[in-house]
């Protein structure tokens, strides 16, 4: 930008800002200096008096203060990490780790700040144990059907009526689909960009 037309006091200020901003990452530094430079250009019309310039600079605050703010902003960019990925995986498969894994996942889910209360309830209730209930139901219902003798229709022990079988298969599908949907939902919600409260 046209730094040459800036008020001498503003030019001096920019010089001090550039010096203070050396410790910022380059992209962050260029963005900050660019924004402050346009601020000075907008705030100080050509031929502004020294008093006007001092006023504008005072409202702006010292270069050190601005750079310190930029530094603290740089540190607190919350991103979901290992804990969040682990929570989703354990909620889905942790049931197979002696069920304890699922509880560990539940704890990780509950202690994370990347999910709202509603997300946490979805994660906890859909479905407790993750995929484990589906496997249990599968073991209880489908596997008890034995092979029929010599061309006779298959025998099931204990006998399960076709209606009950249909209900069990439907239940099985629900118990597989729900935890998977819940896991996809949780990872989507954790990655949704959000801003930390100041």
């Amino acid at each position: 930008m046209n730094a040459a037309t800036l008020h001498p006091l503003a030019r001096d200020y920019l010089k001090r800002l550039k010096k203070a901003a050396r410790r910022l990452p380059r992209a962050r530094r260029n963005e900050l200096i660019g924004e402050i430079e346009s601020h000075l250009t907008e705030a100080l019309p050509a031929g502004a008096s020294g008093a006007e310039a001092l006023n504008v600079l005072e409202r702006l605050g010292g270069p050190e203060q601005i750079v310190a703010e930029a530094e603290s902003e740089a540190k607190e960019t919350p991103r979901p990490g290992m804990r969040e990925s682990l929570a989703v995986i354990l909620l889905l498969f942790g049931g197979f780790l002696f069920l304890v894994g699922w509880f560990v996942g539940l704890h990780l889910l509950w202690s994370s700040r990347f999910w709202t209360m509603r997300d946490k309830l979805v994660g906890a209730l859909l479905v407790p144990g993750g995929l484990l209930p589906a496997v249990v139901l599968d073991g209880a219902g489908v596997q008890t059907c034995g092979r029929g003798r010599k061309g006779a229709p298959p025998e099931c022990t204990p006998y399960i009526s076709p209606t009950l079988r249909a209900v069990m298969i439907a239940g099985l599908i629900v118990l597989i689909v729900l935890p998977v949907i819940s896991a996809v939902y949780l990872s989507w919600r954790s990655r949704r960009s959000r801003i930390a409260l100041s």
Partner: protein
Amino acid sequence: MIEYCVLALLRDGERYGFELVRTLSEVPGMVTSEGTLYPLLSRLRRAGVVETSWRESPSGPPRRYYRLTSSGRAVLEAFSGEWASFRNAVDHFLEQEKTA
């Protein structure tokens, strides 16, 4: 809290940095130093709640305009609801104090 004021200022359309900063600092007690708002704007941009684009200015160099993203709009809406109930709760106690 200032983050949400920025998002609210952008609800009806885009604004350039200086315009945002001046509007905020004109409200007493809101901002101590105008310069510290620029790192905040940068954070909002990196968080994906606002996006920026350069536009020619009728006078002087091009301006960087800020506008809400759809995620920013969602964040603002969620906050508006939370804020309303929080404000009502605080008012409830303040009013009680007064009448007691």
